[in-house]
């Protein structure tokens, strides 16, 4: 009985693992094949990788989109970590009743669907465009600003700050460090894992963001990777091999970030769940 149970356990997990990995394998394999072979369902690697890549470079602004995505995601991540960690630290270390009330109000923003925000935000940036075109519609700023602060990340940092040894704080005050000095010189280096986990979460969601950039970025020069991939897939005679290499390239950054920082990610998630 126990043995057959074990067998089914492994069988089930193996199926789940295969189902999870298979689309990745198919996408990587397909990026090396000709369009015809992809439609025929060829599952073996081919020799058309470079050709697919060349076609992609010739017909799209791949480098531009990659750069746009990189600029937006890195800026968003750095700003988001700074803003949210300052706030998370501030809410936890300098607790007061009024601050707790404000914190709870901030948490409510997690319940606000983006669908309800997109029209007012679009109009807001339309108005900004009239005054400051460099931060209005079709700019990096318009993508970054609305996504850079999330209550989730503040909550995440506040939860983790609960585990920050308060003696270090006192020691810093004794040494005559300013509050900001304590934050920068003691808190920041101590909380590396939290920052790493926060960075992964933010980078991934920023890199993968679609709906808001779709609304606000309107010219080919400002397109991000998801927008590029989405337009490639909607043509009438799609070149599957070429689309697959675009998807592979678009997935590499988040996959890399994930694999390099996997341990911190899981540790950070556990921190946030506690």
């Amino acid at each position, binding site marked *: 009985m126990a043995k057959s149970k074990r067998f089914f*356990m492994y069988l*089930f*997990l193996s199926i*789940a*693992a295969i189902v*999870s*990995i298979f*689309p990745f394998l*198919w996408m990587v394999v397909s990026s090396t094949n000709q369009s015809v072979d992809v*439609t025929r*369902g060829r599952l073996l690697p081919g020799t058309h990788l470079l050709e697919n890549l060349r076609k992609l470079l010739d017909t799209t602004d791949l480098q531009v989109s990659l750069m746009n995505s990189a600029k937006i995601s890195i800026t968003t991540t750095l700003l988001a970590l700074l*803003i949210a960690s*300052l*706030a998370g630290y*501030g*809410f936890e*270390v*300098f*607790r*007061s009743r009024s*601050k707790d009330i*404000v914190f709870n109000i*901030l948490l409510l*923003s997690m*319940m*606000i*669907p*983006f*669908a*309800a*925000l*997109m*029209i*007012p*935000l*679009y*109009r807001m940036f339309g108005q900004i465009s009239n005054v400051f075109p460099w931060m209005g519609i079709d700019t990096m700023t318009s993508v970054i*600003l609305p996504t850079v*602060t999330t209550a989730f990340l503040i909550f995440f940092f506040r939860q983790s700050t609960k585990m920050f040894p308060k003696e270090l704080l006192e020691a810093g005050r004794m040494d005559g460090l300013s*509050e900001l000095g304590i934050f920068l010189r003691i808190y920041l280096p101590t909380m590396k894992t939290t920052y790493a986990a926060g960075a992964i979460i933010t980078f*991934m969601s920023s*890199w*993968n963001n679609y*709906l808001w950039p779709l*609304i606000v970025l309107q010219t080919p020069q400002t397109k991000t*990777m998801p927008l590029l*991939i*989405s337009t*490639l897939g909607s043509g009438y005679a799609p070149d599957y091999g070429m689309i697959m290499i675009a*998807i592979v390239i*678009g*997935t590499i950054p*988040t*996959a890399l970030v*994930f694999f390099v920082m996997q341990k911190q990610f*899981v540790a950070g*998630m*556990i921190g946030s*769940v*506690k």
Partner: protein
Amino acid sequence: MHQTNSKLRFRTKSVLTGWSFVLLAVILIFVFYFYPMLQALILSFQTGTGSNLTFTGFDNYSRLLSDKTFIVSVKNTFIYLLVQVPLMIILALFISVLLNDSKLRFKGFFRTAIFLPCVTSLVAYSVVFKYLFSGNGLVNTMLLKLHLVSAPIEWITDPFWAKITIIIAITWRWTGYNMIFYLSALQNIDHSIYEAAKIDGASSTRQFFGITVPLLKPIILFTSITSTIGTLQLFDEVMNITKGGPGNATQTISQYIYNLSFKYAADFGYAATVSYSIVIMIALLSVIQFKVAGDKNG
């Protein structure tokens, strides 16, 4: 007296420092969440195209109730919600319990493999799924070869199967994500509880329902609320797999809002009204989920 004064001064100073730490975040959240939210509410009582808007009271709201496209979008969204969220949560829970088994080998591999879908962008995986599930796509080819079906399934072009495809896609993308939450919560459960249950002769099914599920209740509540909110806003997948079709068979509320504002003649007022229907649904469903789970334990 002198001491209280300096104490007071220190307290005011610390209150001010505290606020300066949180101020930027508070301002940004108010400017980019609460203010637009209020704007959307005002918009929902206005009508007109582009920026020529006039107040019309509850006209938009009464239009909602007789708007067939809206009703279909709500219906579709709720089908996804009612089928996909429970399916995914049960699956994630089941997998995480298996992965939490101390004797299991290749744990790291299974965990990473099942979590892997989370690294893809919604757009990227949607496009991959669109091709996998196309009429002559790989899924049909394999089903035909294995003689599981006699004719290819119209995954994308049949109203019923298109919904199934969307559900399969979302489940693939998010099960691993929820699993990680359960897995971390499971690791916090003291193993001796299970040992004691075993000694009392409780089967693994009874242990699951008697110990695991109750202890994981807060986390199950959290994941079911976040998944519900996510599903109510479903956009990327439907936009990139089926474009909402065939007909409006897979269209979601978010997609309808997008169409109303950016595809058809920009009717921002009515689109804002539709968007408020999601706000109301999220609020109602979250309250229901809290009540069902019993907020004392949550």
